[in-house]
């Protein structure tokens, strides 16, 4: 399991190697460094895939229960404060780790010819390492360290390889998410210090503070305390829930905390966008499941309505804003906001199925949205423009790009047999079920119904204006200055094919990933119900 630290080390080593050379040598180093990074990420992918087949493919029969972890490892880090280097995987984090390792090589392929490759590819590796670190951490301190660490490579990806306004976008991205994170940090610290002082009891407890940052221990404490009343007291639990959720909602992002996202996405390079949309947004949802939902179920019930409203607003608002976009990448960015709303709604239903839908949405969107951004990147790369109207009749002269675009757009709007459909369908069923069960107004269905139409509208409309319109008199964009109209490069084709293949795979056989997620949610709810925290049912 220590393998997850390796991308960070590999990235640093490669960067240090590059930093010691002068500029002309950089050019020569591009290829070897790219190959090394690619080989490394491929190795990582193989490793996690093997983990899947060995352990997680039949995780339920391996005896899955709440708050137990596979590959659990723990080393002392700051014993004075009860901080440990604790890693472990469960059905919640494993899909995210696998997704990250899957996206790393794909990102490298899709952006094979990125400029300054000698520093770009190691940065991608660093980014991947930090992301994996977030998902495998089972220690609050370690979790927060990696959580913030992801900002640094992404900041440089945007600043060094981004678009015209990259200076503004990179700073906004960093400051916005950092601000939310420090509020979350204060929440984490308060949570840490609210636990009873166990000084001198050794083990996972700090020698100075007598408290621990260990997540499994904290969750155990919380479950035990939640059985009779509220863990940490009612008002405290609510306050901490809000503080932690603030950090996660900004990262997710949910409307109205989403304004950093379009800027960051539009200015980020293709590789940065792919990782940002594919994995980094999921950190927010993952964090919710890992911390507040596991520890503060009472507060979750209390804030259920608020979460539902956040989800609905994100869903609808994101879709409406998409309709008005003329910039292809901005439209895709807002569609991410809309899809993240699906996750929030899934959580707010408080049904195992809704949660499984949210988890699967995280996963499916993690495969589809990189493809969306890869298409946008190719568009920008070849046509030097992101305006939706700038390229017309693409189907005639750039069939590969047109096909990829159509496929990605269809996958994102939830075409059956593709991965996104499964998650959306599950969410709708869970929401219906929830409305019927709890006696909420049927009007709650208006939002999702509306968005189904809106999503189809903005995707189809943009396709029509880009791929099909223009007919016979093909109008190449003015930015090409009459030059030949290019299509996807070989590497881009490969990346698109891989992404499409996995989108189909998880659309046709969703149970590969869904089984473990479903089991996770069911064990979670069974655990909560058997401890008398949630009411029975479901």
């Amino acid at each position: 399991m220590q393998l997850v630290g390796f991308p960070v080390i590999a990235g640093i080593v490669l960067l240090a190697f590059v930093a010691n050379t002068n500029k002309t040598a950089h050019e020569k180093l591009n290829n070897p460094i790219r190959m090394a990074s690619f080989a490394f990420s491929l190795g990582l992918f193989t490793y996690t895939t093997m983990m899947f087949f060995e352990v997680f493919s039949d995780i339920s029969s391996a005896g899955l229960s709440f708050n137990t972890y596979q590959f659990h490892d723990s080393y002392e880090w700051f014993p004075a404060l009860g901080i440990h280097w604790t890693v472990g995987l469960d059905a919640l984090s494993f899909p995210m780790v696998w997704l990250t390792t899957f996206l790393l090589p794909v990102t490298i392929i899709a952006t094979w010819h990125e400029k300054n490759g000698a520093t770009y590819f190691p940065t991608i590796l660093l980014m991947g390492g930090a992301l994996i670190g977030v998902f495998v951490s089972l220690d609050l301190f370690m979790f927060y360290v990696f959580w913030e660490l992801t900002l640094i490579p992404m900041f440089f990806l945007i600043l060094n390889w981004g678009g015209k306004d990259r200076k503004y976008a990179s700073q906004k991205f960093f400051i916005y998410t950092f601000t939310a994170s420090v509020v979350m940090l204060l929440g984490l610290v308060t949570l840490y210090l609210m636990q009873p002082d166990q000084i001198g009891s050794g083990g996972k407890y700090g020698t100075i503070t007598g408290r621990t940052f260990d997540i499994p221990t904290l969750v155990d404490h919380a479950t035990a305390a939640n059985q009779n009343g509220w863990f940490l007291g009612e008002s405290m639990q609510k306050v901490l829930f809000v503080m932690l959720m603030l950090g996660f909602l900004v990262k997710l992002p949910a409307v109205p905390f989403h304004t950093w996202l379009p800027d960051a996405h539009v200015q980020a390079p293709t590789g940065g966008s792919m990782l940002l949309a594919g994995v980094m947004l999921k950190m927010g949802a993952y964090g919710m499941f890992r911390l507040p939902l596991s520890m503060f179920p009472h507060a979750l019930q209390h804030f259920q309505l608020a979460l539902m409203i956040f989800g609905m607003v994100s869903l609808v608002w994101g879709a409406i804003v998409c309709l008005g976009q003329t910039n292809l990448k901005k439209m895709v960015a807002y569609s991410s906001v809309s899809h993240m709303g699906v996750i929030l709604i899934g959580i707010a239903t408080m049904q195992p199925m809704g949660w499984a839908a949210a988890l699967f949405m995280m996963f499916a969107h993690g495969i589809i949205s990189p493809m969306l951004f890869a298409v946008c990147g190719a568009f920008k790369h070849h046509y030097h423009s992101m305006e939706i109207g700038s390229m017309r009749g693409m189907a005639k002269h750039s069939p590969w790009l047109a096909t990829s675009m159509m496929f990605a757009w269809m996958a994102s709007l939830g075409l059956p047999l593709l991965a996104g459909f499964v998650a959306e369908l599950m969410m709708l069923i869970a929401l219906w079920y929830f409305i019927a069960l709890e006696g909420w107004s049927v009007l709650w269905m208006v939002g999702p119904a509306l968005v189904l139409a809106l999503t189809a509208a903005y995707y189809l409309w943009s396709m029509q204006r880009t791929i099909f319109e223009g007919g016979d008199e093909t109008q190449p964009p003015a930015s090409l200055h009459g030059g030949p109209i290019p299509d996807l490069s070989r590497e881009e084709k490969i990346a698109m094919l891989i992404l499409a293949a996995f989108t189909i795979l998880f659309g046709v056989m969703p149970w590969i990933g869904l089984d473990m997620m479903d089991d996770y949610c069911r064990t979670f709810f069974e655990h909560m119900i058997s401890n008398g925290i949630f009411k029975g049912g479901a």
Partner: protein
Amino acid sequence: METTQAFTPEFYTAVMPEMLLFFGLLALMIIPNLGKGTFRIRGTQIRLPWFLGGQRYAWSSNPHLPAWIATLTLTGAFVAVADSLRGGVDAVHIVSSDAESAKELLMINGFSRVFELIFFGALALASFSSMNRLRVEGVGGKLKVDQLYNNRRQADFYILMLTCGLGMSVVALAQDLFVLFIGLELASFSTYVLVAFLKETKAGSEAGMKYFIVGSVASGVGLYGLSMLYLWAGSLQFDVLAATFAVSGTEPLPLIGIGFVLVGFGFKVSAAPFHFAAPDAYAGASSPVAGVLATASKAMGMVGLIRMLLIVAAPDASDGSAVWLVCLGALAALTMTWGNIAALGSTNPKRMLAYSSVAHAGYMLAGLTAVGAWTWDPTFAGNESDAALMVLTAVLFHLLVLVAFKLGAFLVLSILESDGDASRLSSLGGLAKREPLLAFAMFIFMISLAGVPPMAGFLSKLMVIMGIVNVGVGTGAGGLGDFHWVWWLALLMVLNSAVSVFYYLRVAVVMFFDEPEEGREGPLPKGWQVRTSILVCVLATVLIGVFGNSLLEMCRTAAESLTTKW
């Protein structure tokens, strides 16, 4: 624990680092003056060589010599302190030789040792890197008068560095108001001259003048406060003062006295509103000196504050909290907010760092406020000594690691100063293209100052927040309403950290994004000394952030030895 009089063998062992500095000072005065000077016996032609003055030897006239002597002395003192800290320090009390009522003058224990570590570490790094900052002209051959003059000034500079270190460590050791004041003034006067050392430049002399005037007013006010305390208690001893304060601390006289002392030390830690001279001083001084002001001098102010507030005016067991609690809390809130907002608007990197150091002072003052929130007398019910101890550990740790990244940032600016100018943000422009490693180092320092993991600055800020929250949460399990109000200082601190990211990140953006200034495209001047110092700072910043456990525990032990009450 042992008690000894001054000038006994035990005394010399205990104050070994200070003795090293003392001999270093002697060496600095004598060695550069060694030459072929002779002494003629009157009425004869016999000339006896006596080695002082005359034509100097090649090695003794080497302009780098004073720098090396000072650096080696300070490093030696640093190593001596670190070595004595390793096995845990036995407290040594130095008392006056007055037989009937021996008065305690100095106390050497873990707490003061940590401060010596900070002072000597910062000064050693600063004097080592000043070798590249204070221009020396070539040796041998014909030198113009001003060049020669410049070479001769080297000794002055490093003598001041050493006296500065000596004064600071006396402040850390002092157990008596008089000794405290002597140390304070010795260090202050050295820094006034050091700040004004670039007297040829307008900024340098202006900075020195401002710093001197404001500083001496602050010292005067502080001295007035000290004299009021003496008038009231009839003693200069900290322990006597503390005992008297516990009985009659709420009388007006000691309160006004403590208030005045707060002003005096508030200037040293550059707490708002006593910080106005700091940005000018930092901007006018040479960068390594500014780095010393921001780290060692600030630590000296903090140790003074800790002694005066936590030992003399200790939180009272009768109602639980210290008399200065609200006052210091307001000061902390004002300082961190003012510092950060002022830093947002400054375009001179050195002024920006000065304001950021004001903000950091605010964080530490918030920590001290938290210590004063509850009594830590173990006999008192609801014992909160653990929480207070944690905050103090955090403040010590913060001061210690601040040396690494604050001084480091100033050293990077120092290289830019040698290149011409570092007084505009655009001077940093394109640093990533000119010197990628230097830009990377500066980036590390900036994010460490901002408190981004996994740098040392994150750990120390986390510790301070954790300590404040720990005190704030207290015994109140009833939610936010039951928290002590110091908890809100933690929230303010967190929000301030978020604000501070704006200007730290701006430096990174300028370095990695903007083009270099006109005519400044090439690589920066060489200078292995300052680059080595920067490397040391980077390594310390990263390694302490990742493997700082033993340092944390050291600070904990040091904090425990501050008072016998915990």
